[in-house]
């Protein structure tokens, strides 16, 4: 599979990364190089192999249903680029 410039632009949009025309051109070559290389994985016979789910044998622990956190508004908002009172501000969204 190889990508063209339209695909690169589409991936950039999905990734929410603005990309110039020149960058898109450059990226076509780079992505194709990397994708062509990773495609050797297709050679591997994976019949009957389950995709890895846990790196090291371990069980998911579950937390108790107890409120132990929150009420830290100042910590939550401390680094906000555009704090508006008790809120984060973002450019107006039309739904």
């Amino acid at each position: 599979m190889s990508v063209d410039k339209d695909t690169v632009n589409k991936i950039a949009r999905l990734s929410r990364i603005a990309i110039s025309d020149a960058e898109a051109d450059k990226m076509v070559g780079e992505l194709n190089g990397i994708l062509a290389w990773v495609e050797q994985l297709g050679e591997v016979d994976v019949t009957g192999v389950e995709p890895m789910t846990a790196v090291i044998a371990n069980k998911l622990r579950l937390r108790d249903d107890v409120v132990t956190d929150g009420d830290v508004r100042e910590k939550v908002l401390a680094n906000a680029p555009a704090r508006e009172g008790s809120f984060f501000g973002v450019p107006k969204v039309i739904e």
Partner: protein
Amino acid sequence: MSEYRIQGNTGEWEVVIGLEVHAQVTSNAKLFSGASAAFGGEPNSHVSLVDAAMPGMLPVPNRECLRQAVRTGMAINAQINRWSRFDRKNYFYADLPQGYQISQLYHPIVGEGEIEVTLNEKDPDSPTKRIGIERIHVEQDAGKLMHDQHPTMSFVDLNRSGVALMEIVSRPDMSSPQEAGAYLKKLRSILRYVGSCDGNMEQGSMRADVNVSVRKPGGELGTRTETKNVNSIRFMMQAIEYEAQRQVDLIEGGGAVVQETRLFDPNKMETRSMRSKEDAHDYRYFPDPDLLPVELDDAFLEECRASLPELPDAKRKRYEEMGLTAYNAAVLTAEAETAFWFEDLLGHGVDAKQGSNWLMSELFGALNKLGKSLDESPVNPAQAAELLGLVADGTISGSIAKQVFEIMLETGQGAAAIVDERGLKQTNDTDAIEAEIAKIMAANEDKVAEYRSGKDKLFGFFVGQTMKAMQGKANPQVINDLLKKVLG
């Protein structure tokens, strides 16, 4: 179950409806953090650093949220998956701090189940239909955006961010707004019985995404639209009606239905397209690498099953076996709240038939007048049981009981106290009753003669006269016995 058809210019159209219901799981803390899941709160106060997706923050799942999903699954006879996983659904939006929602796509915790619905749950003869449930998965809620606080900005409040939701996905098994309404009502009833969701649609703890398509009867499925976040049963039925008609008009006008997400505007009673989000549908789901698979053991599943309450269908059957009418059994079990109130009443020693009749006529009537719901009732089951006990043991008559109940509602006093204070106790004083009977017989010799010559119906007249003379406080049984004796 219902033959709902839309009459178009080209003939009849059938509607196909599937629902994705988001139900907020009843829990203290959020799905993956220790912040409070409570409704309301100061903006951004029920938020931990995990919910705000600060760098390096990690999710740890809340056992109770998974337990509630499993119990809900069991309540709809669904397949419970001992092995499930969380996946990330990736998209960018201001109410989604991580840039992904942790959800379950590939391996949901609950698989196939079903719910039996009836168009009119109060009518035992109404036909029923089984609606398939495809799955229930657990996922995070998003935060909230406010658009009206600032001329050029929207404000973000993350209090809801990370609250646990169950997404209950039905099969496209419904074919009319009424069926969809009945399904949603029944589902809400089950959730409330189980206690896994409070079903409060106004507060948004239950909302439906409505998938609607139309087709010629028996034909191939049409393209569907998804109307998002409808937050009342009535709105949902209106949305379906509007949307189905719109699709028929569109197709018959030579157009085609576009697969898209829409919004229902309850003021205009219409659906409209949400601003098309390009690429919005490539969610790039993949297993969340911060979490291990969810593995449920026997002990966990057993506890879930053991903690399930009796569910509406089973309860209804049992009530009928207890001698209640089918109608009473249906009404009393439709909502968990009612059934629990009724059972509380029985727990205080009230007879099932007496209790159900009183609840359905007296209490419901009174609440109706007061404009109150059952959980706002000024009389609780213990107080009601006291009143009904006085009737059962002959202390007061049924008609006095009505008066006493009125006074209870007004004053909040107990039934026995009212009866005492106002001297409403029923009398068994045979001398007094006999004296009154003698007077009545003397005053109505003609009627006595008519009765004795065979006009049995007059017996009621004598009972009424005697009761009136006793100011309603005589034991009707005693009156009966005495009258029979003297009238012969």
